[in-house]
């Protein structure tokens, strides 16, 4: 058997369009996930029991159920209670909500990694809880979180392939479309995989750059 990539070349513009959708969906979902994750992660550690519980429940449910099921609930389920979303919107929201659960745990870990002694020093110096969070804990927590966040972003880019099940023409969906007309399954998905690799490499390079820049010298 021989691989013939020339069959795929005419479809490259389609692949790039799909890649663009994947990148757009990923960036939007990462932003939603960061926002939700920061709020929920802080909610896990603040000294307020009811908030702790809600935040814990969020993480528990999100991490304990499949992303695919969450996406189906948002896209196919919500219309039955009158909330109809466009496929792309539903997909981005679903990815973001899902990522938020994982980011929350990263945020919590980052915050808890700041040594307790520093919190005590801040308390004795008279800093309020919010001042301590803002000036002492979060600047260090963000640095602690970066490697894990990088992983999470990469995971999210890859999981965005599930959006193809909502008929969104992102990269994986384009792959399926091109395969169905060319029947060059292996070639098509090798190209798809390579494009994912380029995107995830870009993400990890960016995260590593930020890590180096923010390092405590």
């Amino acid at each position, binding site marked *: 058997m021989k691989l013939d990539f020339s069959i795929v070349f005419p479809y490259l513009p389609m692949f790039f369009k799909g890649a663009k959708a994947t990148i757009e969906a990923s960036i939007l979902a990462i932003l939603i996930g960061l926002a939700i994750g920061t709020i929920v992660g802080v909610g896990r550690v603040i000294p307020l029991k009811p908030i702790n519980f809600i935040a814990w429940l969020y993480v528990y449910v999100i991490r304990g159920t499949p992303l695919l099921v969450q996406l189906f609930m948002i896209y196919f389920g919500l219309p039955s209670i009158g909330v109809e979303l466009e496929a792309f919107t539903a997909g981005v929201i679903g990815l973001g909500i899902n990522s938020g659960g994982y980011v929350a745990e990263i945020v919590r870990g980052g915050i808890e990694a700041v040594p307790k*002694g520093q919190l005590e020093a801040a308390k*004795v*110096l008279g800093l309020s809880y919010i001042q301590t969070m803002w000036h002492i804990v979060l600047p*260090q927590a963000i640095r602690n979180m970066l490697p894990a966040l990088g992983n999470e972003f990469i995971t999210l880019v890859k999981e965005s392939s599930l959006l193809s099940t909502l008929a969104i023409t992102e990269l994986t969906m384009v792959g399926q479309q091109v395969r169905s007309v060319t029947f060059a399954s292996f070639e098509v998905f090798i190209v798809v995989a390579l494009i994912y690799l380029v995107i995830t490499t870009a993400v990890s390079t960016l995260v590593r750059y930020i890590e180096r820049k923010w390092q*405590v010298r």
Partner: protein
Amino acid sequence: METLRAVNVSKSYGKLQVLKGINLSVKKGEVLSIIGPSGSGKSTLLRCLCGLESIDSGEIYINDEPLIADRFSHRHLATKIGMIFQSFNLFPHMTSLENVMLAPMKVKGLSKRKAEKLAKELLIRVGLGDKINYRPSQLSGGQQQRVAIARALAMQPDIMLFDEPTSALDPELVGEVLEVIAQLAKEGMTMIIVTHEMLFAKEISNRVIFMDEGSIIEEGSPQEIFVNPSNPRTRAFLRRLLPHFGSSLIEGEKENEVRL
């Protein structure tokens, strides 16, 4: 006037009673050292005095004002009490200068310029005028502890509490920190020092307390405690720490014969 007074302070962790009715007072300008074996409740006592731990019963007064957790906010307390920790607890993402400037700006509302001027003066005072832009990771333990002292002084507290300030230091770095503390004492700062540096405690203190198992066993002048303690537990403790302690008692040697 008494800067700090503790009346019948008790504290338990679960079933373990760590403080059993502690009474102590420190007058303005006085230096009080607390010695005793580890686990005797010395550190817990200091943590209660600075409001880091709540007490189960008893009262604590700062300048004759009662210290009650909810009424006496940490913001208010910070201008009365400075605390120095065994592990320095500097903020690692900030320079020495920023470490010292933070609380005066955020808690006392000093302008950035005033806070910077104050911080520079204090860092010079602890001998680190050339290290103001260094981060804690670039400083030795002794230097870090001196930054921590400058940071506490920046809130201009009425009393400074030292919780084993040199225990985490390499032996050769202990001296520079003790020197700074001795200088503060000379300048009239009111202080309570929990320490295992017996010679230092003896030289610097006006009064010494020996604690064991959550109680004050003996209290007196450095002379009384280190040279002629009346309690057998104090004697046993000092004998363990000061090898020549027993012989100096027997031979009736002068206090300056007591050596580590």
